[in-house]
């Protein structure tokens, strides 16, 4: 295992497991408050903010997917944008050319991406650490060009992309399209989140984490290393695909330029900022990649990239383990307050 991999996954080890006692109830209370906030916020804000929150949830799902791969099984990927693109295009093509209901496109996109990721996982088995990161990087770089290929142009719309129709709220619910899509996305996110938490707590999840911590020891204990590594890739790609499909519906447009390598980097960044291996942190990571570029731009137009870098630097310097560290600090503060 490369050193890079160890430095990232090691600190994850002691805290990934379920916290016990008081902190568990505190964590549960915090998640409940968060959930209630997510449920009621749309009633108080403009449609534009609702749209931003929808994007936040969607990127949250994509970051979560990467978290399962990296935090769960210890594999790197800089190619998540490719899976995201495949999911988005699958949904767009099914809706626009196939006339499929948008809700049905999500599982289909998920399955397609699962297969894609699973197959990609096989060659990736031979690589580890930074080499795997580079291989997935190649995938991310190649994807926009593949989408432009003339052969697929009839389906993908080539360089012009595809415009997707936004769904109305069903059953005549008195809701704007944005609000409906937000709640729809929220339900999907919750389902995926619960499934992911359960996956990591299950036998398969423990096997993945065993591989992450020490591949040789895991193999010696009888864990089918290659099987679980590719499985992690498949699950991660599948979830990313669902996020991509939701993204296509929310943005109403897919084009090769939407899924460049920068998206892969952004998702990776989201994972690091949120805390590697800590699933609730995915939302915080997504918030970072959605809002911080806007903040940086607000500071200076010409130097937005530099200010983004500075903000990122500050975050990494102050809380190197991301939002999880923030949560731990908040928890200890809370406990201290209660004791005094």
């Amino acid at each position: 295992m490369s050193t890079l991999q160890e430095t990232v996954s090691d600190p994850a080890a002691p805290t990934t497991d379920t916290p016990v006692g008081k902190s568990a109830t505190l964590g549960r209370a915090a998640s409940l408050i968060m959930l209630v906030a997510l449920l009621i916020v749309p009633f108080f804000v403009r449609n534009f903010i609702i749209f931003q929150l929808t994007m936040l949830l969607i990127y949250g799902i994509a970051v979560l997917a990467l978290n399962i791969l990296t935090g769960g099984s210890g594999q790197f990927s800089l190619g998540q944008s490719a899976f995201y693109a495949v999911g988005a295009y699958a949904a767009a093509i099914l809706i626009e050319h196939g006339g499929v209901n948008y809700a049905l496109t999500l599982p289909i996109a998920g399955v397609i991406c699962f297969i894609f990721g699973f197959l990609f996982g096989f060659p990736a088995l031979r690589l580890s650490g930074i080499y795997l990161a580079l291989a997935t990087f190649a995938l991310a770089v190649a994807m926009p060009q593949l989408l432009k290929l003339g052969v697929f142009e009839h389906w993908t719309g080539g360089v012009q992309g595809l415009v997707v129709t936004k769904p109305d709220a069903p059953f005549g619910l008195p809701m704007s399209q944005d609000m409906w899509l937000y709640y729809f996305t929220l339900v999907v996110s919750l389902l995926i989140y619960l499934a992911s938490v359960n996956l990591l707590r299950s036998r398969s999840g423990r096997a993945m984490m065993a591989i992450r911590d020490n591949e040789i020891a895991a193999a010696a204990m009888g864990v089918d290393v290659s099987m679980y590594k590719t499985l992690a890739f498949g699950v991660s790609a599948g979830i990313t695909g669902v996020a991509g499909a939701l993204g296509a519906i929310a943005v109403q447009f897919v084009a090769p330029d939407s899924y460049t390598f920068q998206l892969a980097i952004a998702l990776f960044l989201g994972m690091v900022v949120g805390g590697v291996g800590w699933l609730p942190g995915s939302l915080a990571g997504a918030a970072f990649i959605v809002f911080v570029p806007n903040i940086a731009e607000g500071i200076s137009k010409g130097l937005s990239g530099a200010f983004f870098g500075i903000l990122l630097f500050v975050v990494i310097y102050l809380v190197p383990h991301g939002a999880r560290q923030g949560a731990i600090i908040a928890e200890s503060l809370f406990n201290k307050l209660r004791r005094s």
Partner: protein
Amino acid sequence: MNSRQKLRIAAISTAIIAFAAASGSAIAQKKYDTGATDTEIKIGNIMPYSGPASAYGIIGKTEAAYFQMVNDQGGINGRKVNFISYDDAYSPPKAVEHARKLVESDEALLIFNPLGTPSNTAIQKYLNAKKVPQLFVATGAAKWNDPKHFPWTMGWQPNYQDEARIYAKYLLKEKPDAKVAVLYQNDDFGKDYVKGFKEGLGDKAKSMIVIEESYEVSEPTIDSHIVKIKASGADTLLDFTTPKFAAQTIKKAGELNWKPLHIVTNVSISVGAVMKPAGFEYGQGVLSAAYLKDGADSQWDNDPGMKKWIAFVDKYAPGANKSDSGLVYGYGAAQTLHKVLEMCGDNLTRENVMKQAASLKDFQTDVALPGVKINTSATDFAPIQQVQMMRFKGEKWELFGDVISSDAKD
């Protein structure tokens, strides 16, 4: 509240309404949509200040500077322009987010000159559904001139397909037996040119084109493509590339001592950014077409329009590189919007903005070539449709022939 009070209130309000109605017809009627008031007009804009197309960011900065100048001179009909510009990094999802922010949160009257075909495609449906003008988009795709389906979207520059048709027409007339090589960028930009060019050649396209070669915008150099094209035996090169690659092509062809009839796109005619780096000796005789003046070209030094432009650059964009065509483009586009908003007078509704934008008659910006006029109508949403062919000679472009209208169907 008793009934007498109610009655009184009703009477007063009736009087007020009657007065308002009367005075409304007597004094010039002021009508506003979201984004316009007695003192301010809010204009939204989306630009790639960062990311792969950040070189175009200068256009947004120039436009901001232009409206700063307008405000310093007293604004438009007494109203200050509030120009709000966001960075989408050339990413369509980000463009959608910003368009929504501009419309729903900043409450801009219109979205002006957003850049890039993918970004504009992404926001077109939304803006048309919201009935917010998507005015003078900064892309040369042919699809923006579609008032029937998208009555709230309008282009500005000549479209790529029409420009390519002009080159085809020129070839058919001057060199009907040419062996043509087509080099294009593998994206919407390059493919639009190829489509227009082939349509322009018509039946002769198959026999005239000997090789079609494409490259990706991410390639660091396209030298190997040039070698391949030369080997095909072509004697004419249609160079549908963006500035960096046009410079490489001209240079490499020169180094290979290959002298085809070389046509570059209007996008890549900057003397400072293309011809100079390529080497003037290699650029001799290269053909193209233009609709704007070149800021670095000395032949316009005494031109009254360009004098205004130079004064503007010196005061509002000090230190900017005058050979950057984005400075000319942004000025021209902003001036067109300035004109439209002036024409709107005190009726600053979104509907009237589109109506006035579609009523431009022979409008000439300071930076357009002599004879290139902007004309629009309810069925014609393509403001600039005229270009003039030109040939590179010495260290500048020499215009030749007449100003050609690219929509002429003959």
